[in-house]
C-alpha cells in the first residue's frame, strides 16, 4: 500500500500530507512530480493544498494541465483512489474528474478557520471509518471554496449521492445561507464530493491538519486512517 503526494509548482501542503500519511499513519508515502507522466504504482494519489501555479487564472486551472494528471486520470479510470484536498479539490474540478466549479468565497476574502462538517455517506473508502450524520471539526484555509454548478446538475449530484460532506453547525444542522456555518457560500453547503464510482473524492477542508492532538484537533485522523485501511490487505488499519 503506497501513497503518492503530487507536487505541483506552488503546492504548499504537500509536506503536511506526506507527514500525516508517513509519520502519523505510518504508511509508505512518496512525492509525485507534476512533470512526470506516472504515479509510480501508488494505490492512493493525493492532490494536496496550496496555490498550484499561483492559482493564476482560476484555482487549479493551470495545474489540471500537468503531465502527471494524465496518469492520475488513468489511475482513476482503473478505479484507483484519488483524494483532492483544498487546492487539490479545485484541480480535480478543473481536470473534469469531479463535476462543478469553484468560485471565490462569498465574502471575497481568504478564510482560515475551523468549520463543522456533516458526514453524508460512509460507504466510500474515504469515509469508511465515519458515521453518517457524524459531525467533524476541520480547518479550512482558502479563498475559492464557493462550490457552484447549475441547479439541474446540483440535483443530479444529490440524486447520485455524490455529496460526501456538508458545512453544518456543531449540532449537524445545515443552513446554506448562514455565513457562520457555510462561510464560503458553497451551493447547498457542499464541502466535499465524490465521483459516481466513489473512488475520486475532493474536499475543501484540511484533514491532514487535524491528525495530532498536540495541534488541538484530530478529527481528520479517522478519515485518512479509513482511507488507508480500505487499501490494506484484510482492511486492517496501519494506524
Amino acid at each position, binding site marked *: 500500500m503506497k501513497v503518492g503526494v503530487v507536487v505541483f509548482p506552488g503546492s504548499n501542503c504537500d509536506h503536511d500530507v506526506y507527514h500525516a500519511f508517513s509519520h502519523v499513519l505510518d504508511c509508505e508515502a512518496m512525492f509525485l512530480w507534476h512533470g512526470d507522466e506516472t504515479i509510480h504504482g501508488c494505490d492512493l494519489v493525493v492532490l494536496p493544498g496550496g496555490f498550484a501555479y499561483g492559482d493564476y487564472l482560476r484555482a487549479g486551472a493551470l495545474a489540471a494541465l500537468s503531465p502527471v494528471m494524465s496518469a492520475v486520470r488513468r489511475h482513476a479510470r482503473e478505479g484507483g483512489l484519488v483524494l483532492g484536498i483544498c487546492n487539490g479539490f479545485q484541480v480535480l474540478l478543473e481536470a473534469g474528474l469531479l463535476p462543478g*466549479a469553484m*468560485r471565490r468565497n462569498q465574502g471575497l476574502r481568504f478564510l482560515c478557520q475551523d468549520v463543522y462538517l456533516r458526514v453524508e455517506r460512509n460507504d466510500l473508502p474515504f469515509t469508511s471509518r465515519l458515521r453518517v450524520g457524524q459531525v467533524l471539526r476541520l480547518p479550512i484555509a482558502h479563498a475559492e471554496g464557493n462550490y457552484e454548478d447549475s441547479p439541474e446538475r446540483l440535483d443530479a449530484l444529490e440524486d447520485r449521492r455524490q455529496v460526501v460532506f456538508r458545512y453544518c453547525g456543531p449540532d449537524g444542522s445545515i443552513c446554506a445561507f448562514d455565513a457562520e456555518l457555510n462561510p464560503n457560500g458553497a451551493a447547498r453547503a457542499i464541502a466535499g464530493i465524490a465521483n459516481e464510482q466513489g473512488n475520486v473524492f475532493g474536499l475543501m477542508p484540511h484533514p491532514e491538519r487535524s491528525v495530532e492532538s498536540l495541534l488541538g484537533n484530530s478529527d481528520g485522523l479517522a478519515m485518512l486512517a479509513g482511507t488507508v485501511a480500505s487499501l490494506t490487505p484484510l482492511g486492517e488499519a496501519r494506524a
Partner: protein
Amino acid sequence: MIQARVTVYPRREILDPQGKAIGDALSRLGFQGVVSVRAGKSFEIELDSAEVSGARRQLEDMCERLLANTVVEDYEIEILGEDGR
C-alpha cells in the same frame, strides 16, 4: 501579428458575488443609478499569426481548453487589430 481580446464572464444564471459586491460599493460611494455590475476577466493576447480566421479558431480553442471554465463562465473573442496597432 494579431492583437485579440478575450473576455470571460460568469454565466448569467450563476450568481456573481464579486459583481454584486462592486455594485454595492459603487452605490455606497454615492453613484446613482447603477443597475447591475458583472465582474469578469479580460485577456489581451498577441498572436504571431497571419490570418484572422485561423487566429479566431485558435482563440476559441484556448477559451474552451483553458481561459474559460465553461461550467460557470461564458467567453467572447474580439480581434483588436492586425500587425500590432
